[in-house]
C-alpha cells in the first residue's frame, strides 16, 4: 500500500483533527502528520518551513470556517508561495459547507483562490476518501 511523506490538517475542530489523524495512522497513509488550529498558525508555520528549506507537505486538508484566518484567506495568502515551489502540494477543502461530491460544488471553484484546490470534500471525511486522496497524490 502506497503512502505519502506528510499530510497537513488545518482545522479548528480538535476532535475532527484527532479522528483524521487516527485514520491516517491506522491505515498507514502517511509518514508524518501536521495539525494546525487555524489558517494563520498554518500559514506562519508552513511559510517558515519553506524559508528554512524543510521538506514540504504533500497534501493539505483545509477547513473553511476557522477563527483568525479562514480557509479562503489561507488559500489566497499561501498560493503565491505554493507556486514558487518545485514540489507539488495537493490541496483539498474538507468542510461541512461542502455538499455532496466534487461535481456538485462547481460554485466553490468560482471563488478566486479555489484554483489551487483539487477537490471539495464534505465533512466528515471517510477512510475511503482519504485513501483515494493519498492514491491520487502518489500516482
Amino acid at each position, binding site marked *: 500500500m502506497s503512502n505519502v511523506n506528510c499530510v497537513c490538517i488545518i482545522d479548528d475542530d480538535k*476532535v*475532527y483533527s484527532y479522528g483524521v489523524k487516527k485514520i491516517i495512522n491506522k491505515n498507514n497513509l502517511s509518514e508524518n502528520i501536521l495539525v494546525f488550529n*487555524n489558517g*494563520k498558525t498554518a500559514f506562519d508555520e508552513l511559510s517558515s518551513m519553506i524559508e528554512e528549506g524543510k521538506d514540504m507537505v504533500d497534501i493539505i486538508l483545509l477547513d473553511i470556517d476557522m*477563527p*483568525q484566518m479562514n480557509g479562503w484567506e489561507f488559500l489566497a495568502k499561501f498560493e503565491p508561495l505554493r507556486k514558487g515551489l518545485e514540489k507539488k502540494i495537493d490541496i483539498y477543502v474538507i468542510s461541512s459547507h461542502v455538499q455532496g461530491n466534487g461535481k456538485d460544488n462547481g460554485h466553490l471553484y468560482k471563488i478566486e483562490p479555489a484554483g489551487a484546490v483539487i477537490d471539495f470534500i464534505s465533512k*466528515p471525511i471517510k477512510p475511503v476518501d482519504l485513501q483515494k486522496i493519498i492514491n491520487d497524490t502518489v500516482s
Partner: protein
Amino acid sequence: MEIGFNKIKNLALSLDDKKKADLAEKLLNSFDDEAVHEIVEKISTNNKQDRKAYETNLFFNHIVSTLSDGVFACDADLKYTFWNSGMEKITGRNKEEVIGTHPLETFPFLEKADLYRLYEETLAGKTCITDDHPYDIEGKKGWVHEYMAPLKNEAGDIIGIVVVVTDITEQKTLENKLRKRDKTLTKFSAQIPGVIYQYRWFPDGKSCFPFASEGIREIYEVSPDEVKNDATNAINRIHPDDLEKVIKSITESFENLTDWELEYRVKLPERGERWLKGRARPNKEEDGSVLWHGYISDITEQKKMLDANLQIKTQFQAILDTMPNEVFVKDIEGRILLANKSGADFFDLTPEEIIGKTDEDLGTPKEQAEKFNESTRKVIETAKPYFIKEGRYINKNGEEEWHQALKVPHQHPGSDKPTVLIVVTDITMRKQIEAELNETLSIVGEQNKRLLNFAHIVSHNLRNHAGNISMLLSLYDDEESDEEKQELFTHLLTASEGLNDTIKDLNEIVATQVTVDKHRKKLNLKEHFLKAKEILTTEINAHHVKIEDSIDDDLTIEYVPAYLDSILLNLLSNAIKYRHPDRQPEVTFKAYLNNGHIMVEVSDNGVGIDLDKYRDKLFGMYKTFHGNSNAKGIGLFITKNQIESMGGNIEVESEVNKGTSFKIKLL
C-alpha cells in the same frame, strides 16, 4: 155763437201765423162786444201757445238733426213721420225714401216679429230698451241698441212712437278689446305663482284690494271678492310676529311714496306658516288714498333652499376647517382667494387675513414661492390636475416639513377667472414612519440573515459534531488498545458536549426570537448593572478591572428582565474578556435618556477589533476573532438578537489595540 167761434177757430188754425195775426186784428176792430173780445183773447193766447210749440218744435228739430244717434218717429198706423240725419247716417237711407213707408217692411235692425212686439208694447205705453244687437246693412256691420218710447199729444193720448237708435259699434269694439285684454290678464295672472294686485289704503286706515288675481287664494287663502272692499281678511293672515314690520313698511311707503318691498310670514289656515315676498309701487290718488300696484309671491321654498344652502356652506366651512389638510384656492397670480383654518394656521394668521395675499407676501422664500406659482399656472394653462408627490419645506421654525400637494382646476364662486384648488397634506409624520419602517425592514433583513445563519449552523455545526461522533465511534470499534480507547472516549465526550452546547445555544436563540413582549417589567437599570457586576466579581478581581459607571439611580426601563441581565452581563464580560494584556483593564458604563430612548454605552481599553475586516461578522453566530479560547462566538449574536427583538439597536466602534465601544439603544 159757439159754432161761429169754432168756425173762426178752425179758420184761424188753418191760417199761417202772419195771417192769423192780421185776422185777429181785423176781428178785434170789427167786434166790439165782450164775447168777441173774449174769443179774440183766447185765439191770441192759443196763438201764443202755438207759437211756443212751434219754437219748441224748431229747437227739438235742430237738436235731433245734429244728434249722431238716429231718431225716428212713427204714427199710430206705424208709418214713418220723422227720420233724422243720424238715421240717414246709420242706415244710409234718406228721409224722403222712408217717410210714409212702413217700418215693419223696411226697418233694418230688428226682426219683424221683434219689432212688432216692441211697437205693441210701446203703443201700450211702455218704454222699451233693446239689448245690444249686431246689424248688417248691405255689408256694413255694426252694433246698435234701440230706445223706444210712446209719443203722446197734449191730452196724453198715445199718437205714435219715437225711437232712438244708438250705434254702439265703436263702443262694442272697445269693449271687446277690453274684455279680451281682461281675459289675457286673468289668464296670465292665473299662470303666475303669486298674486298681482291693487291695494288701496285710505287716510282713515281702511284698506282694500280693488283688484287681486286668483293667486290671492293661495297667497292669503282668501278669494279676490272677499278682500275687494276690505283687506281685513288678508291682513289677519299675516304672522303676528311680522305684523308690526308689515304695517311699518306700508306706512313708510304710504308717506314717502317709495316702492314697498318686504319679506314676511303669513299663518294660513291650510298651508300653515309661509314666507312671502311683496313688491309694489304706490301712487297717490286724488281722494288722498294711495293705490299700490304690486306682486306678492311665496318664497318659502327659496327661503328653505337658501337656509339649506347657508347650512351647507357653514357645514362645508366647518368640514374644511377641521381638515388637517391645508386647503387653498388661488388665482393665476398665486393670490389666495380662500383658505381653511389649517391653511391659515400654517402662516399663523386667520383665514380672513391671508385672503388676497400671495405666498411671497406671506413670507415664503421667493424661489420657493415662484415654484409654487409655476405649478399653479401650469394647472390653469393645461386645465389638468397636478400632483406633487412630496416636497421638502423648511418652516419658519427652521424645521423640515414634507408636503404632498394636489392642485386641481377649479371654478371659484364669485371669481370669473380660472382658479386652482390646492389641497396640501403634511406628510412629515408619514415620512418619519416611513423611515422607521425602513429601519424595521432592515431589522427584518437582519433577522432573515440570522435565520440563514441559523440554517447554516444547523447544517454546519450539528453535522460537524455528529460527523465527529460517528467517525470516532467507527475508530473505537476497530481499536484494540485500551489506552487508545480511553483517548477516543475522551474525544467522544468532547464531541457530544459540543453537540449538546450547540443545541443549547440554538435553543437560547430560538427562545430570544419568540419571547418578545412577554414578562416585561419596570426595571431599575442601575440595580441590574450592579447585579451583572457582582456575577463577574471573580473576573474583575482576578484581572484588576477598573469599572466606572454613570447611571441615574432612578433610571427605569420596561424590559424583559432576563434579556436585560443577559445583555448587561454579555457586554461587561466581553469588555473584560478582550482586555489588553499590557495594561489594566478599564471599563466605563453609561446609561442615559436621549429623546425618550434609553441609551447604554460600554467602552473598554481592550484589544479592539479590526472593524474594516470584521464589522459584518461581529454579530454573527460562532464568529470569533481573537483565537481566544473563551470565545464561543455566540454572545454578541444573542445580545444583538435580544436588543433588536425589543426594538432597539446596537452599534460598535473600535480600534485595534485601543479599545472597543458599544452604543446601545435599549428602548
